[in-house]
C-alpha cells in the first residue's frame, strides 16, 4: 500500500485531475438520485395528501386541474354543487367532500384558500371536531403572523372575517401554504354560487374503485380521475427528464473510466523501471496486477467520497420546487452513498484492468532496460 501512496504523492497534479474526472460523474449521479427521489416523494405526499380514492374534477385537462387543485389555483371551471346528490347516491361512495380552491387576499396578502365542509376532517387529521373557523398551514401562519385566536380578513370578490382555530404543524407539502375555511365562506369570497372546484371521494371498498370511477365518470359536468393516474403521469413526466439526465451521468462516468484508464496506462509506461525492479526482487505478475488495481481503486474511492460531498452541495443549490410549484426538496438515503461509492469502485476496477494486465505482462529484463 505504501507504494500506492508514494506514487500518488509523487504525481499530485495527475492525481487531482483523475480524482476530479471521476468525482464529477459521481456528484452528478448523487444529485440525480437525491433530486429524483425528492420529486417522487413530494408528489406522493401531495397526491396522497388529497386523501381521496377518486377525484371528481370539472371537464378539462385532468392533470392541470389536479395541479391547480394542489397549488390552490382557481380553475375557472367548476362542478355544479347539486351534482353532489348524484355522487353520494353512487354505490360504494363512502364520502364525497366538496372543495373550492383559489387565491384570495388574507389580511391583504395573496394566499391559497381551500374551502371545505366538515367531511374534509375525515380525510385530513387535524384533531378538530368541526371546521367552523380558519385552519392555517404552518408556512401561511408564519408568513401572515397568525396564531390560534387571530382574526383574519378574507377578500377578493367579497369580504369575510373569521378567527383562526388551528395552526397546522409543518408537513413539508402544499398544505403548509393554505388557509382552510368552511366551504360557504370560500364560495362567498370567490363569488361561486353553488359551484365547487372538485369533490374528493372515498370508497367503502377499495377493490371496487375502478367500477365506482366508471359510474361517477358517467355523471354530467364532471370527470372521475384516480389520484394514482395523475401521480403516474407526473412521475412519468419527471421520469423521462430523469432518464435524459441519467444518460448524461452515464456519459460522465464513461469519461471518468477512460480518464482513469489513460492515467493508469501512462503510469505503467512511466514506471517500467519500478515494475522491473519489483519483478527482479521476486514480485509475481499477480503482485504487479494487484498493485495497479489497488492504486486505481484507491483513487476512485477518494473521488467517490469527494463526488458524494460535491453532489450533496449541488442538491442544496437546486430549486426546492418543481416548475409546477410542487415540493421537490431532495431526499437523501444512505443507500445513495453506497451506490455512488460502488459506482466509483466500479470505475476504478474497470479502468485498472487493462493497464494492470499490461504491467503484469511486462518482462523484468525489458523493464530494466529503461534504466
Amino acid at each position, binding site marked *: 500500500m505504501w507504494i500506492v501512496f508514494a506514487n500518488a504523492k509523487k504525481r499530485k497534479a495527475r492525481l487531482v485531475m483523475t480524482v476530479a474526472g471521476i468525482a464529477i460523474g459521481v456528484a452528478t449521479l448523487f444529485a440525480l438520485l437525491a433530486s429524483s427521489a425528492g420529486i417522487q416523494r413530494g408528489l406522493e405526499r401531495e397526491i396522497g395528501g388529497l386523501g381521496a380514492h377518486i377525484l371528481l374534477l370539472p371537464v*378539462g*385537462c385532468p392533470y*392541470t*386541474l389536479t*395541479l*391547480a387543485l394542489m*397549488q390552490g*389555483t*382557481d*380553475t*375557472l*371551471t367548476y362542478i355544479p354543487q347539486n351534482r353532489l346528490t348524484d355522487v353520494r347516491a353512487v354505490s360504494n361512495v363512502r364520502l364525497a367532500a366538496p372543495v373550492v380552491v383559489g*387565491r384570495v387576499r388574507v389580511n391583504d396578502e*395573496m394566499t391559497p384558500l381551500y374551502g371545505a365542509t366538515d367531511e374534509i376532517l375525515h380525510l385530513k387529521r387535524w384533531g378538530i371536531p368541526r371546521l367552523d373557523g380558519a385552519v392555517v398551514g404552518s408556512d401561511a401562519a408564519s408568513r401572515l403572523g397568525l396564531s390560534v385566536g387571530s382574526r383574519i380578513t378574507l377578500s*377578493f*370578490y*367579497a369580504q369575510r372575517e373569521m378567527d383562526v382555530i388551528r395552526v397546522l404543524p409543518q408537513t413539508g407539502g402544499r398544505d403548509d401554504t393554505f388557509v382552510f375555511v368552511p366551504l360557504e365562506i370560500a364560495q362567498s369570497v370567490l*363569488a361561486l354560487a353553488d359551484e365547487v372546484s372538485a369533490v374528493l371521494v372515498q370508497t367503502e371498498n377499495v377493490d371496487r374503485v375502478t367500477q365506482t370511477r366508471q359510474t361517477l365518470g358517467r355523471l354530467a359536468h364532471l370527470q372521475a380521475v384516480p389520484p394514482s393516474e395523475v401521480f403516474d403521469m407526473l412521475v412519468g413526466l419527471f421520469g423521462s427528464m430523469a432518464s435524459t439526465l441519467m444518460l448524461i451521468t452515464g456519459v460522465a462516468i464513461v469519461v471518468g473510466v477512460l480518464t482513469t484508464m489513460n492515467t493508469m496506462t501512462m503510469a505503467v509506461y512511466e514506471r517500467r523501471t519500478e515494475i522491473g525492479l519489483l519483478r527482479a526482487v521476486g514480485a509475481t505478475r499477480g503482485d504487479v496486477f494487484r498493485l495497479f488495481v489497488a492504486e486505481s481503486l484507491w483513487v476512485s474511492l477518494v473521488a467517490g467520497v469527494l463526488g458524494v460531498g460535491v453532489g450533496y452541495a449541488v442538491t442544496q443549490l437546486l430549486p426546492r420546487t418543481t*416548475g*409546477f*410549484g410542487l415540493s421537490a426538496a431532495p431526499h437523501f438515503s444512505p443507500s445513495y452513498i453506497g451506490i455512488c461509492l460502488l459506482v466509483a469502485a466500479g470505475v476504478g476496477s474497470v479502468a485498472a484492468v487493462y493497464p494492470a494486465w499490461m504491467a503484469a505482462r511486462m518482462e523484468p529484463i525489458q523493464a530494466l532496460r529503461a534504466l
Partner: protein
Amino acid sequence: MEFRRWRKIGRIALAMLAVVSAGFLGGSEGGDGVLLPDASGQWSIPGGIYAGRAPTAPGMVEIRGVRALSFDPAHIQTLRPDLFMEGYFSVFDVLVYLAERGDIQLAYVWDRAAATHRILSLNGLSGWWYDARYAGGEYERPVVRMDHFPVKDGMSIRLYLEQPDRLTAIHQSFRNEVKRRAANGGVVIIPEVTIRGPRWTLVAHDVIVAPTGTRSDVFRPGVVTALDVLLALGRDGVLTSVKLVWHDRLEDSDHVDSFMVHALRGGGHEALATDGCMFAHQTGSDVLEGFIVPHGHGSSHIHLSADLEPLVSPEHVRWTWLCR
C-alpha cells in the same frame, strides 16, 4: 403597365378559382384551399374575396360575482376604429356597451404604454381579466388585448378577477411589445418564430412582418395579424409553400370564418394535411411562462385563429402541428 394590369387580373382570377374550387369541394368545412405562393410568386391572399360573417346575434357576458348580461351587436360601436372595420367589435367594446346601458359600473383608461384599453374598476373592484371561447371551443385564458379580441356570433365571454401576479405579467408583456415595436421604428419584428412540425422544428429569428390585408373584411388596412407572420416566413424563403383552407365552420364550431393552416413546406421539411391535423398558433412573451392556467397556455391561446389575432409585436410566435 399593361403587364402589371394583366398580372393583377390573373391573380384575382386565380383567387376566384380557389374560392369556386373550395365551394365545389365542400368549402364550408374546409375545401381545396389556397396554395401560397400563388402563380405569380406572391405570399398574400387578395382581400375582399374571403369574408366572414359580422356578429349579428345577441350574445352573453358572464361577469363573476355580478351576473350574466346579454348584448345586442346592433348597438355596439367599437372603441378601436383603427383596428376594426364597420360591423366588427371586440370583447372590450361589449363591456363599454354594458356600462353605457347602465348594467355595470366601468372605469377604464387608454393605456398608451400597453397600446390597449385597461379596466380600472368594474363595480368597484379592480384586477379584471377575461376568458373567451368561440362556439364549439373551450375557455382558454387568452393573453390577447381585450380590445383586440373580435366578437363572433355564438361566442361566450367571462370576466373574472385575475391573480395579481399574472395580470401584472400580462400588462408587462403588452408594454414590452409596445417598446419593441417602437425600438424597431414601428415595424413588427418577431424575435423568434418557431414551427413545430410532426417530427421537426424550424426556428426563424427577427422575422419582419408586414400586413397582407388577408382579413380586410374584419381589420383595417395596415393591421398585422399572426397569419402575416407565416406569410412573412414564405416571403423570406424560410417556407417554400403554405396551404391555407377557409373554414366557415369546423365540426361543431360555427362560426369559424377563418383560414386554417393545413400544410406547409420549408427547410427540407413538410407537414401535409391528414385527417384531423393542422397547424395552430400561439403568440406571447416569456414573462407569461410558468403560470398554471387550466385550459390555457403560457402565451396567447390557439382557438383564436391566426388571421383574427392582431399583433403589436410579441416576443414569440409558435406554430404547432396538432392532431385530434
